[in-house]
């Protein structure tokens, strides 16, 4: 039984964490909201007064807005599709009996621990460079014309790099989920003569649906704000400017803080829509 005394102690023990997170959330949020209603150009006149919802309207009506939404959707969608499809297949494969399973796991997980600036630069220069990249040797070897990856295929390039970083995450989580599958159920269905494909559709995939949803939501939240992968590769050029990169440029590069802040508010709303679904799953799990 928790006594009154221990309740007070518990509250004191939680106070620092709660206070810090509350400040971390509220102070910048209120400032962003404040700036979003102002014409604020730090390098060209500073605070030029209240403008109502002007920034919100201008942000969405600028010519860069819709292309950035499209780029964001293509990158997030492409990476999710690749990592989840291959993640499921890899998880099933890794769950099979084999020799040296531990080492294979280590090899597959490794990319997740490589810092984003390293993976982006290594891929950009040593693999996707049109003159010296390994991929262009590969293309030439098969008699094909090497691709100018970063300029002709900026979005696919970024999707490849980011998928390489996140495939380990998806695989690891799906593998954890698959290992909790009741093997007796699988054996029974095997004895009943169910084909591999039927077992996959009717037993494995339904069992994984929850883990797939979790991977989908968590990755979406992280992928919506990828930054370094664009910063060190294309710098937002060649149609690879995502919504968060556009906001970064408005705020820090062109120092149009009001406009960028309005974009920031849109990004916060978007992320919260995704977060609500994730929180629901996590919350349900907390009750058990």
């Amino acid at each position, binding site marked *: 039984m*928790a006594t009154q005394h221990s309740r007070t*102690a*518990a*509250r004191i*023990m*939680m106070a*620092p*964490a709660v206070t810090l*997170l509350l400040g*971390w*959330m509220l*102070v*910048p949020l209120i400032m*962003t909201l404040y700036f979003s209603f102002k014409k604020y150009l730090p390098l060209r006149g500073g605070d030029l007064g209240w403008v109502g919802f002007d920034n919100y309207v201008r942000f969405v009506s600028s010519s860069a807005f819709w292309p950035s939404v499209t780029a964001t959707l293509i990158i997030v969608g492409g990476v999710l599709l690749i990592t989840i499809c291959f993640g499921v297949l*890899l998880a099933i*494969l*890794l769950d*099979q*009996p*084999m020799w*040296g399973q531990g080492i294979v*796991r*280590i*090899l*597959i997980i*490794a*990319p*997740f*621990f490589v*810092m984003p*600036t390293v993976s982006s*630069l*290594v891929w950009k220069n*040593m*693999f996707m460079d049109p003159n010296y990249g390994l991929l262009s*040797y590969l293309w030439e070897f098969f008699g094909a014309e090497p691709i100018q990856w970063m300029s002709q295929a900026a979005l696919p390039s970024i999707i490849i790099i980011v998928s390489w970083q996140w495939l380990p995450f998806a695989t690891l989580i799906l593998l*954890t*989920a698959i290992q*909790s599958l009741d093997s007796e159920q699988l054996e029974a269905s095997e004895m009943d003569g169910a084909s591999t494909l039927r077992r996959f559709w009717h037993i494995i995939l339904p069992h994984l649906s929850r883990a797939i949803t*979790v991977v989908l939501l*968590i990755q979406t939240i992280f992928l919506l704000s990828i*930054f370094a992968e664009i*910063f*060190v*590769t294309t710098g937002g050029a060649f149609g690879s400017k995502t919504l*968060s990169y556009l906001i970064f440029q408005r*705020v*820090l590069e062109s120092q149009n*803080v009001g406009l960028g*802040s309005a974009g*920031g*508010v849109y990004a*916060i709303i978007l*992320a*919260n829509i*995704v977060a609500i679904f994730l*929180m629901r799953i*996590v919350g349900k799990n*907390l*009750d058990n």
Partner: protein
Amino acid sequence: MARAVSSRRKSINTALAWGIGLIIFFPILWTILTSFKTEGQAIADPPVFLFFDWTLENYSIVQDRSDYMRYLWNSVIIAGGSTLLGIIIAVPAAWSMAFVPSKRTKDILMWMLSTKMLPAVGVLYPIYLLFIKLGLLDSLFGLVIVLMLINLPIIIWMLYTYFKEIPGEILEAARMDGASLKSEILYVLTPMAIPGIASTILLNVILAWNEAFWTLNLTAAKAGPLTAFIASYSSPEGLFYAKLSAASTMAIAPILILGWFSQKQLVRGLTFGAVK
């Protein structure tokens, strides 16, 4: 019971898994190999794989030219400092939520998680401005604080799930034996909590080490960690593959090794207990 599997099927599984594993690992392997080549060999046509004159000169060039050690030190301070500070703040909070839960505990946990979902770019300018006003721009202290705050929800969540697994009966037994609160914490709870705390530290050092939004935007020459050190290679000058590889290898090696120890914690830490 293990299912009986023909050795032929096992061989096929093994070959397939090793093939895919090596393809996925290849970019890292290639980076490590290239770091030991000369710049000329690094762009040789056809590419050389293992048979070249191994050299360590790239490592010394990278250190001489860009002072690798200072960036490494900054990374260690930022990743280590933010994690330790986070742990100090999180342990009491997670402890009290796990052992003295109230009606609001769940709401507080969910709210803490929601602060993690705030997109960094949405609050970039306010933080940037506060850093200028407080003189924290390009300072290690400022980055330690920011990275501590962005990882605090994950630290609290991980610790909470670990503490939850400590059975309450053990505490009661200790109390019946007449243990004081102090000895209860010192001799009963702490030994059981240490593995969880260690795993939490491990995962958060990795996350902080690789963080590449705030570390790129809030630092310049003085406090930049390895993420910024590598980003400075994004504008190529002449032949630089071997040097880029050496710099990259040095930046990822420590964390790659730590990371391999933290596979299991990764799932727990990044799914907030939603996948077990």
